[in-house]
């Protein structure tokens, strides 16, 4: 165990933030595992990325600032980069899923080539494993 001796004012927040960050991460990933459709699942990790990462980053900042007795804030960069990249991932993935579903449904029911979007969200897509089409690629 190489953790440095920290004063109480630093140790307690770090500990709390770590526990909180860990918990949120766990809950977020649990959501990923537990929720029923892809469109729901994508919301699970979001809390891990936003809050879980945030807590742990802050914990890290506080810890190293206290441990090294100097201002350590380079974790901010991680935060900034995550803020800039996570939306891209979410948007692209969501849109990919949407059009894949639309296409899959159009292929299954050619008459309904362009179904309204509203219908999509509620449908569970578990049954449709993507064997040959895109997933097999």
């Amino acid at each position, binding site marked *: 165990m190489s953790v440095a001796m920290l004063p109480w004012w630093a140790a307690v927040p770090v500990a709390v933030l770590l526990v909180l960050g860990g918990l*949120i991460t766990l*809950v*977020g990933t*649990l*959501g990923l595992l*537990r*929720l*029923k*459709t892809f*469109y*729901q699942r*994508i*919301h*699970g990790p*979001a*809390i891990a990325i*936003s*809050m879980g990462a945030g807590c742990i980053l802050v914990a890290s900042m506080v810890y190293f600032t206290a441990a090294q007795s100097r201002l*350590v*804030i*380079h974790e*901010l*960069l991680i935060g900034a980069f995550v*803020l*800039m990249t*996570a*939306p891209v991932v*979410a*948007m692209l993935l*969501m*849109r990919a899923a*949407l059009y894949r579903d639309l296409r899959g449904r159009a292929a299954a029911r050619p008459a309904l080539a362009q179904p309204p*979007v*509203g219908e*999509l*969200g*509620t449908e569970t897509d578990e049954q449709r494993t993507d064997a040959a089409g895109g997933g097999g690629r």
Partner: protein
Amino acid sequence: MKRWLPSPLLSIGLLLTWLVLNQSSEPAHWLLGAALGVVAPLLARPLLPHGHARLRRPRALLRLLWLSAIEIIRSSVNVGQLILLRKPEAVNSQFIRVPLDLRSPHGLALLSCLINSTPGTVWVDLLPESHELLLHVFDLNDEAWWIDTIKTSYEGPIIEVFEGAGPTPEGEEA
């Protein structure tokens, strides 16, 4: 000036990044960071067709960020509860469409960042003809409330930040 320093904000950002990365404020790093702050945007410029954003109202931006941060925490708790406590079948996930007035690409980017960072909502697409935002909401109670919140709490301030009060779109070719 603009030729050699297309976006001072970006350059400062890069310099700060460099200093923070190196965790150092030695003169050598200031110099090197400054050089990178100048050179990197210049080298990247051909690949930036939308130019650089110009913040008209930085203070509005800060306020917006603060509000969003609170919203993020609130939503996180909500989503966490839903995941843990509610049966997945009982969660009412829906796509909704939000008509937007915001045109600035940078503004839209900021909007998407805020929406996506807020748990419970995901930006799906911007429908080209209607200029509507297709949004996925984790647990939808009231569609109108969502549309209203987004338009007033987010879109409005963003338009203010990037376009000042005026309606002129910004961000043509740099």
